[in-house]
C-alpha cells in the first residue's frame, strides 16, 4: 500500500473514486471532454448523451434516494463525485433538474408527481429550468414578485424570471411563485412546475460577458398551472428551498473546479514563457496553497457531517473562499496565456499553433467566473451570514 489516503477517507471511498475515473475515461466522448476543459460551449445533445451514460450506471442523480432511481450516496460519495467529475471535465448536465427539482419532488412531491415527473429527468427527455431570480430580487428571494392567483383548481401565474439558465433548451420550469400575502415576506411562496410550451411563457436570451448565451429572461403572462403541479404545501417553498440547498452545501465550494483550474494553470505555466519567472511561480504556489486550504476546509466539514455534527458557518466560508479562489485562478491562467487571451474565440480564427489555440477561451473563463461571487448568495451575503453568527447579533 503506497498510496496515502487523506484523513477520514477510507479504502472504499478511494475505490469508488478509481471506478468513477475509469468510467469517465472510458465513456465520455473525448471531444466533449476537451470542450469542457477549454471552457468552450457544450450542446444540449452532448449533455444528454453524457447524462444517459450516467443514468445507465445509476449515477445520474447523486442526491436522490435509491428508490426513485438516485445514487443513494452519502455526503462523502457525493463530494468525491463532484470533485472528480469537475477534475475530469465532464459536462454538468441539467443541474436544475438533477440537483434541485428532483430532490424536491423526491422529498416533498406526491406519489403521482414522482411517477409523472421523475422518469423524464432520469431519461434525459425532460429538460428543466429554474425560476428563482427576478428583476429587482437578486440575493433577496423574499422580495419575489411573480404572483399566482387561484382560478378553480388552477393557478394563473404572472411575472418575470431573470438569469434563467437552460430556459432556451428546457421543456419544464419550476418556479417560485407568491401564492398568498403573508406578514413575513418569506411566507406565501410556493413551488409551481409547468411545461415551457404553456401559453403565456416566452423566453428572451441574455448574452453575458464574453458573448455567452447561457441565461435568459422568462416572461410569464397569465400562465395556467394545474393545481396538481404544486410541489409540497402551499406557502412552504422557503423552507423547502432551504432543505434542498442544504443538500448542495459543499458544491458551492467548487473544490473540483478549483483543482481543475489549478492543473490548467500549472500546465500553461510549464510550457509558456513564464516557466522560469520566480514571481509568477510564487503566485502559482500561493494559489495552490489556497486550493489546499479550501479542500481541507471542505474535508473538515465532511468529517463533521459524518460524525453527525452541523456544518455551520464554515459552509459560508467555503462559498466565499471557493468563489475567490476560482476567480483568482482564472485570472492567473488568463495572464499566463498573455496576448492570445485578448483574442475573441468567436471571431474569425487566427492561424495559431495548437498550444496557443487551447488558450483562446481563457478570458471567457475569467469573465464567466465573476458570476461565482454574485450568483447563489453573493459574497456580500455570505459575509453577512458569517458576521451574524460570529457577532451573535
Amino acid at each position, binding site marked *: 500500500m503506497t498510496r496515502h489516503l487523506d484523513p477520514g477517507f477510507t479504502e472504499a471511498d478511494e475505490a469508488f473514486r478509481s471506478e468513477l475515473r475509469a468510467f469517465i475515461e472510458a465513456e465520455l466522448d473525448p471531444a466533449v471532454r476537451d470542450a469542457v476543459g477549454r471552457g468552450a460551449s457544450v450542446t444540449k445533445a452532448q449533455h444528454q448523451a453524457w447524462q444517459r451514460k450516467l443514468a445507465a450506471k445509476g449515477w445520474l442523480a447523486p442526491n436522490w434516494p435509491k428508490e426513485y432511481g438516485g445514487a443513494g450516496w452519502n455526503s462523502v460519495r457525493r463530494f468525491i463525485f463532484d470533485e472528480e467529475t469537475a477534475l475530469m471535465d465532464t459536462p454538468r448536465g441539467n443541474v436544475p433538474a438533477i440537483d434541485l427539482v428532483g430532490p424536491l419532488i423526491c422529498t416533498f412531491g406526491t406519489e403521482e408527481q414522482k411517477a409523472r415527473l421523475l422518469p423524464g429527468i432520469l431519461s434525459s427527455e425532460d429538460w428543466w429550468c429554474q425560476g428563482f431570480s427576478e428583476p429587482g430580487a437578486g*440575493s433577496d428571494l423574499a422580495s419575489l414578485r411573480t404572483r399566482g392567483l387561484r382560478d378553480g383548481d388552477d393557478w394563473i401565474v404572472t411575472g418575470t424570471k431573470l438569469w434563467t439558465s437552460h430556459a432556451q433548451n428546457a421543456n419544464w420550469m419550476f418556479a417560485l411563485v407568491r401564492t398568498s400575502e403573508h406578514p413575513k415576506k418569506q411566507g406565501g411562496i410556493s413551488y409551481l412546475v409547468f411545461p415551457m410550451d404553456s401559453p403565456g411563457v416566452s423566453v428572451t436570451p441574455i448574452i453575458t460577458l464574453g458573448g455567452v448565451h447561457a441565461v435568459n429572461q422568462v416572461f410569464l403572462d397569465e400562465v395556467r398551472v394545474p393545481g396538481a403541479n404544486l410541489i409540497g404545501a402551499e406557502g412552504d417553498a422557503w423552507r423547502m428551498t432551504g432543505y434542498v440547498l442544504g443538500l448542495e452545501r459543499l458544491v458551492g465550494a467548487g473544490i473540483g473546479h478549483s483543482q481543475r483550474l489549478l492543473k490548467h494553470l500549472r500546465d500553461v505555466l510549464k510550457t509558456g514563457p513564464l516557466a522560469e519567472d520566480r514571481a509568477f511561480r510564487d503566485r502559482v504556489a500561493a494559489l495552490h496553497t489556497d486550493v489546499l486550504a479550501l479542500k481541507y476546509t471542505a474535508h473538515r466539514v465532511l468529517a463533521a457531517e459524518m460524525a453527525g455534527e452541523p456544518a455551520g458557518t464554515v459552509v459560508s466560508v467555503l462559498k466565499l473562499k471557493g468563489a475567490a479562489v476560482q476567480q483568482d485562478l482564472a485570472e492567473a491562467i488568463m495572464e499566463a496565456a498573455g496576448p*492570445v487571451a*485578448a483574442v475573441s474565440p468567436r471571431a*474569425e480564427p487566427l492561424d495559431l499553433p495548437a498550444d496557443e489555440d487551447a488558450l483562446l477561451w481563457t478570458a471567457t473563463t475569467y469573465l464567466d467566473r465573476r458570476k461565482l461571487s454574485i*450568483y447563489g448568495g453573493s459574497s456580500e451575503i455570505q459575509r453577512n451570514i458569517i458576521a451574524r453568527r460570529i457577532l451573535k447579533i
Partner: protein
Amino acid sequence: MTVAYVFSEDQGMLADSVARFLERDYPPARRRAALTAGFDEMLWQGLANLGLFGALFDEDQGGFGGPVETMALFGPLGRHMALAPVLECMVTAGSILAASTLGPDHTEALTTGTMRPALATLEGQARDPWDVTAVALPMSGGMLSGAKRWVQGGDAATHFLVTARDGGALSLWLVAADAPGVSVTSSLRIDGHGIAEVTFDSSPGTLVASGDEAARLLSLGLDRGAMAACAQAVGEMDALMEATPEYLRGREQYGVPLASFQALQHRMADMFVALECARSLCWHGTLAFERPEADRRAAVAAALVQVGRSARFIGQQAVQLHGGMGMSEEMPVAHHFLSLTTFGLVRGAEPLHLRRFEAATDPERT
C-alpha cells in the same frame, strides 16, 4: 507653483467635441453592430471629419497637439468605447512615423486619417515589443520576410511599421499593406477592436530608421501608445465610477437602497481611491514626454502598473456591485469590464512593467 494637472480651455473643448460627436452619432446599438463586423469605416470618417487626429501630433510634425491633447481626447474615446484604431494607428504607429525623417511625407495623410499604419513588432512567444529577435530580416534592397503577431489595429491598417534586426542593429521599416508578399489574417479582440497576424514574403519596405534612432522612435511610439491607453482606461473607469453609485442608489434590497449598505459604500470608496491614483500617474506619465528618456520610461511604466491595477479592481468591483446585471452584455458596465480586461492583456502584465520601472529608476533618489 504654477498651473498644472488641468486641461487648457482648448484641450477641454477638443474633448467635448469628441464626447458630443460620440453621444450623438455613436449610439450603443451601432457600436454593438460593429462588435462582430470589425473596422467601422463610417466611425473612422466621422472622427476624421472632426479634425481630431491633428491633435495627436506635435506642431512640428504637422499637428496642433501632443501628449496632453492625446490624454484629453482618449478620456471620451474610452468613456464611449469607440471601436476605432485611433490608439494603435494614430498614436503608437503614427507618432513613430511622424517623428521620423519620413514624417513630412506622411503628416497630411495621417492627420486626415487616410493613412493608418500599425506597428508590427511581436514575434513567436515574445511578450515584450523589444524582444525582436530573428524572424523579420531585411534582405538586400529592403525586402522583408518573416511573421509578426498580435498586430493591434492590423485588420484596418493601410501600412505596417515593422521592426527588424539586421545582425545586431534594430531597424524600422514602412511596408504598404497591399505590397507584394504581405499577407494579413484578421480577427477581433474580446473588446471588439481589430487584431491581425501579418506575414511578409520578400515584401518591399522603406527604411524608417535604424540603430539608436530606430530604438528612440520605437520607445517613443510605445510610450505614447501606452499613455493613450492609460487615458482611455481612466475614461472607462470614470464611466464606471458614475454608473455604479447611480445603480446602487436606484436599487433596493431588503427594502432599502443598496447604496445604504456600508460595505458597498466602502468598496466604492476604495474604487475611488484606485481611480484617483490612476489619474495621478496618468498625468505624471503624460507630462513626462518633456523629460529625459529614462525619467519618461519610469513614469510610463509606473502609470501602466497603477492603471492596470486600478482597471482590474474597478472593473471587477463594478461588475460585482451591479450584481447579476453587471454580467449582461446589455449593460455598458459589462463592456467597460471587457475593455479594462483587454487593457491588461494587450499592454502586458504587471511584472513586465515593474521590471521596466526598476530598470529605469535612478536608485539614489525617489
